[in-house]
């Protein structure tokens, strides 16, 4: 063995090293550097404006573009305008969180049972329902919102505008997340575990509950996080289906106040929702890492990209 062959030999024995080397070689080409520059610029453009908005929520003065010192004034101590002391801001925050919790609690079980049924029950009816669920994912939100608004105002239903209507609309709109994500996971699991459980004497429901369901926990968790975060973000449905000021959410509040010379309290409100969203994502990610450690879970986001 000659000396010149040694690096190749090393690279073969140590795949990690080989990969790093190839990456280094690739990443130093002008093309790779150009792409890296575009990516960095994109990420700055994408995230810096939000970072600035968060920064100004801590501004001591009323301005949202001139820094006047750090303060928690707009969160806590301003007697009139802070999130803690302005009842309308406080209620927008709590109502947003309430909707997110309620919608997640119903959407996830409903979506998981639907995913199970759609995956194993073959025929016209389930494939029609599958189609309806996927349609609800791409249909412009305004269509569903207006449909529900008309239904609730024109028909005699037990439902009223406000929290009830908002939760109903959100569940319908979010149902596709658990369905698509859980089905993608079921596809990789296959039927063999359930069949083994049946062979060992489990009932059909028992096999689903004790063999299949535990393997679906990571996917269920991911869909719960997505639903929760997406509800915090929702605007169109909650606005059309709201009733009075008590059912105003943070997104509605931002929409109505952003152009009306707001104080940094609006930024503080938005930042608090952002913190709620990030906390849930972080907790979910930690749980997911513990659960899905040996599962070889694939990224579920790709499911929505489809396979043309």
């Amino acid at each position, binding site marked *: 063995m000659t000396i010149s062959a040694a690096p190749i030999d090393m690279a073969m024995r140590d795949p990690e090293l080989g*990969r790093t080397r190839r990456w280094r070689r690739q990443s130093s080409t002008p093309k790779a550097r150009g792409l890296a520059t575009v990516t960095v610029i994109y990420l700055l453009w994408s995230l810096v404006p939000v970072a600035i908005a968060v920064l100004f929520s801590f501004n001591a003065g009323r301005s949202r573009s001139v820094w006047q010192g750090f303060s928690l004034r707009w969160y806590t101590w301003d007697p009139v305008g802070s999130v803690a002391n302005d009842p309308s801001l406080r209620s927008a925050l709590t109502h947003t969180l309430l909707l997110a919790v309620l919608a997640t609690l119903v959407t996830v079980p409903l979506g998981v049972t639907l995913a199970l049924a759609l995956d194993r029950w073959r025929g016209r009816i389930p494939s029609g329902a599958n189609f309806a669920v996927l349609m609800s994912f791409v249909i412009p939100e305004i269509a569903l919102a207006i449909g529900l608004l*008309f239904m609730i105002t024109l028909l005699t239903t037990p439902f009223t505008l406000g929290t009830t209507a908002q939760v109903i609309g959100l569940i319908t709109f979010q149902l596709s997340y658990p369905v698509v994500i859980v089905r993608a996971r079921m596809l990789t699991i296959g039927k063999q575990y359930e069949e083994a459980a049946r062979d060992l004497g489990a009932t059909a429901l028992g096999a*689903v509950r004790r063999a299949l369901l535990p393997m679906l926990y990571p996917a269920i968790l991911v869909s719960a996080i997505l639903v929760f975060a997406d509800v915090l973000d929702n605007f169109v449905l909650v606005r059309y289906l709201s009733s009075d000021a008590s059912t105003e959410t943070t997104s509605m509040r931002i929409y109505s106040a*952003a152009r009306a010379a707001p104080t940094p309290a609006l930024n503080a409100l938005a930042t608090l929702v952002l913190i709620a969203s990030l906390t849930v994502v972080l907790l979910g990610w930690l749980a997911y890492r513990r659960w899905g450690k040996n599962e070889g879970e694939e990224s579920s986001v790709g499911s*929505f*990209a489809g396979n043309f």
Partner: protein
Amino acid sequence: MAKRSQRFLWPALAIPSFAWLALFLAIPFYVVLCIAFGQVDPIFRTSIPAWNPLDWRFDQFAITLDRIFGANNFYLPPITRTITYVVTAVIISLIIAFPVAYFTARYAGKRKGLVLVLLVAPFWISYMMRMLAWVNLLQTDGIVNSVISLGGLLPVEVNWLSGKPYTVVMGLIYGYVPYMILPLFAALDRISPSLLEAARDLGASGFDVFRRVVIPMSIPGIAAGMLLVALPMMGDYFTSDLLSGSPDTSMIGNLINGTIQTPGQSGQAAALLLLVLLVLAAPMFLYTRTVARSETRS
């Protein structure tokens, strides 16, 4: 016995969600149809839905179509504007998203995880907050103007937030481009590096590999990404409201949103909505079918 319980298990599991979809997806859609094909009370200006399909009339559609194509076609400008804005925004989104997704999939190396986290971050930040961030930056006394005027040295005071089409298009791109990057990344990440090496070994130049291997294999991701950004843009009214607020930049979403709040015009709002859905039906159907197919493939 075991066979029977198996046979009834799946339909039983489906009952709650089927009932839900029938109640809250099918019925609302039917109500929209009945309003669009119904009448308007001449005195109270309230909508009289035609619940029986045999009573359906095309009056509301005729009024709507007349306002689009007739002599007094004040519905037309928002429609053509929407098409211009959405097409521009989707093309620019693709120009931004492709290199970013391509870099992340092929060249990010060890930093791939970090880049992905940053790319996904906008999903966890509410859309309204992201628009609020730009409202802050683009105010007349905002940071963008003070940077352009070099801190007040130059007499520049651009009024970005009043009826500027480019601000609205920028807002649309900013709002929706993350939805394009992720499916594109998924498609590009699936291309095996050995395939690209094989193409090179067979004599293709770097550009050839890109044009004849990478591009064709990323068509599904490109199509999915374009659909995922174009569909919500078509119904968007809040981006234009927040970043412009002027009728000069109002889109179809603004038109529907405004019409529905005007007494006596809910029939036209419903008709407009159905026309939008009709135009979007083909792309929505295409997307739904391909996702449904990929779900059942084992």
